[in-house]
């Protein structure tokens, strides 16, 4: 497969655009383009046959059963056929629950219209925050089958009440609350007194809520953890 690169001289373009009569558009509008635009399939297994046709250009009808056709207008000039777009996806972003901040007047979710929608269209900035949070949650849920964190960084900030200095801890090294608390106790020099825990483990989750770690299972904790705070337990 050869791709010509018209790099050196602008006078030798890949194919002579000047020869084309730009006033007669002999080719029909694209077919098969629905409101959801063009996107590439998730598995490209089906795309290999269609891929072949897109690579060979209008100037070369190539061997090997290319699907590109040439349209000739009345004066027999070559008018490149529009590259066939054979990739469809019905992008199905997850049907999520209603967004959490109800006080936003524009409460319509980006995934309206029966759960189908285009990413980033219409190009309105304000939606970014809500969508990012939801997408992050979805990604976390999907990727977190073995209790690992979805984001690439596994370091989490830890603060202790009464201590100005925040520390960082690699959460991927832990798989249970026991190991985590042991490490934290060592880190902040806390000890159990008379078998009573002097500190409680709390954390800030993705939704912006502070929760007690002992109230949730480890997986849930890991998935939504953003920051850890140790607060004194008052008895």
């Amino acid at each position: 497969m050869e791709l010509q690169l018209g790099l050196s001289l602008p006078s030798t373009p890949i194919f002579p655009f000047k020869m084309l009569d730009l006033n007669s558009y002999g080719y029909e509008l694209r077919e098969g383009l629905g409101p959801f635009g063009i996107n590439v399939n998730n598995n490209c297994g089906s795309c290999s046959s269609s891929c072949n046709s897109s690579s060979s250009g209008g100037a070369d009808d190539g061997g090997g059963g290319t699907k590109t056709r040439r349209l000739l207008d009345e004066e027999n000039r070559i008018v490149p056929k529009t590259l066939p777009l054979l990739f469809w996806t019905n992008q199905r972003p997850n049907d999520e629950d209603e967004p959490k901040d109800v006080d936003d007047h524009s409460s319509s979710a980006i995934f309206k219209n029966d759960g189908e929608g285009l990413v980033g269209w219409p190009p309105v900035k304000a939606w970014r925050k809500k969508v990012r949070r939801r997408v992050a949650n979805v990604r976390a849920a999907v990727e977190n089958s073995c209790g690992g964190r979805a984001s690439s960084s596994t370091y989490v900030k830890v603060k202790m009440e009464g201590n100005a200095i925040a520390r960082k801890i690699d959460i991927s090294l832990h798989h249970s609350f026991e190991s985590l608390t042991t490490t934290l106790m060592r880190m902040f020099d806390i000890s159990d007194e008379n078998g009573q825990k002097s500190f409680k483990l709390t954390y800030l989750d993705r939704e912006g809520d502070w929760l007690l770690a002992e109230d949730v299972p480890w997986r849930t904790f890991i998935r939504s953890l953003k920051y850890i705070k140790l607060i004194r337990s008052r008895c």
Partner: protein
Amino acid sequence: MLKKMAFSFPDEVLEHVFSFIQSDKDRNAVSMVCKSWYEIERWCRRKVFVGNCYAVSPRMVIRRFPEFRSIELKGKPHFADFNLVPDGWGGYVFPWIAEMAGAYPWLEEIRLKRMVVTDESLELIAKSFKNFKVLVLSSCEGFSTDGLAAIAASCKNLKELDLRDCEVDDLSAHWLSHFPETYTSLVSLNISCLGSDEASFSALERLVRRCTNLKTLRLNRAVPLDKIANILRHAPQLVEFGTGTYTADVRPDVYSDLAGVFSSCKELKSLSGFWDVIPDYLPAIYPVCSKLTSLNLSYATIQSPDLIKLVSHCPNLQRLLVLDYIEDSGLEVLASSCKDLQELRVFPSDPFGAEPNVSLTEQGLVAVSLGCPKLQSVLYFCRRMSNEALVTIARSRPNFTRFRLCIIEPKTADYLTLEPLDVGFGAIVQYCKDLRRLSLSGLLTDRVFEYIGTYAKKLEMLSVAFAGDSDLGLHHVLSGCESLRKLEIRDCPFGDKALLANAAKLETMRSLWMSSCAVSFAACKLLGQKMPRLNVEVIDERGPPDSRPENCPVDKLYIYRSIAGPRFDMPPFVWTMDEDSGLRLS
């Protein structure tokens, strides 16, 4: 000695002359005159602008401009605003801060756009730059209020803290109390993006009270209406003010308090905020309306009659941001009342609804174009358009410099003739000879690109979505638009040919973004191999592009010129096409 013979002025004089030249373009031109001027200029350049943080490395910048005081950096591509750039793509500011902290401590201003800023970065800024004055973070993310607390606590000479459109982890509102009681130099504070949970009102009030030079204050949604009066009372010198939530139970004492306080603000020129506004409280701002030049009502969910009333009170308005609740009727009133209008942005109140919820059509834009002789910048969301309207707009308003039209449903044809909107947009580029920025929408064929390539000679930024028929379209743009710097394309049938035929053009531009188009992996590799001064990034969350046939289209493509070479901070779903194997993983 030969050097001195060539010039009649000593270096210091030249330096003094250069100090009057502020624009980057002019400075760059000055530096190219001769070696001597290059040297003098680089030592006295005080402001550096880097439009793409990956185009150059921090060390290169510092090496060339050893004494700059102010830096502006931009990170992610514009389409990141619309979630088209996956999280983790890049744009980290920390390496820049680290290098600058080491190089010299006298940096005063940092302005960032679409970059990832961490608390560590903010803490490093706070620690390293003793005379730090200005921090503007525009559409940035990655930091929390902890980082802000560090800035507040340490930057004794801070004048400006502007967090427009940022995503901040709101851990605690008490970061404001970290401004020491002795700190009084604040001139501009924009915290409108912060969360809605709690706000430290007393700390805010005390801060406003002691910073008598405060000119700009943009509050966040957490500040309720009854608190605004208290805050404004201490700052009658404000020029720009952003309210918090503009709603409360309608009480005459709250109202009169508010109205009284607004009337004492004699310098107020710009208003924004107005979340959840209820019309009953709007007249409180009438005393300042006649002096207003800028009004941002893009969060104000009030209907056309109330908007009309408000707008009629503002004859000196130059800039208006509003929701489409204003409707055509409101825009007609705007056209007749605000003859100084220069910029208009109309946002959709219900962008995802299938049916129009308001009566806002192309007529509103036509009215404003006909009625406002100074109008030069427009961002307009609507649901229908016609070639006729666009031609009228173009003819009546040839002074447009920025024209961004978003017809909400992709590929919407001219509603009168059912034809593509090629002719309409063609008229825009033909009549508006100074057009610098253009966003297209609606049903468009390759023809519109032919018009653009032929006429849009001053066009610097073009945004295209769901348009065109073939590579010819892209070829027209790349070969015709001489001033093109940024091109962003999504969901268009543009493939390899136009891109490869115009490869050299890409080195004259800042960047090219193409997503959901038809550019093959093979073409990307070829570009990467043949063009060493371009970074060709393939962004594909499906997996490595070489796990699919070479002629498969890539999902997203971001090409930018760079003298820093490929970057090494890429996430697993970004590949840089390189000279070696054509594939480089981070």
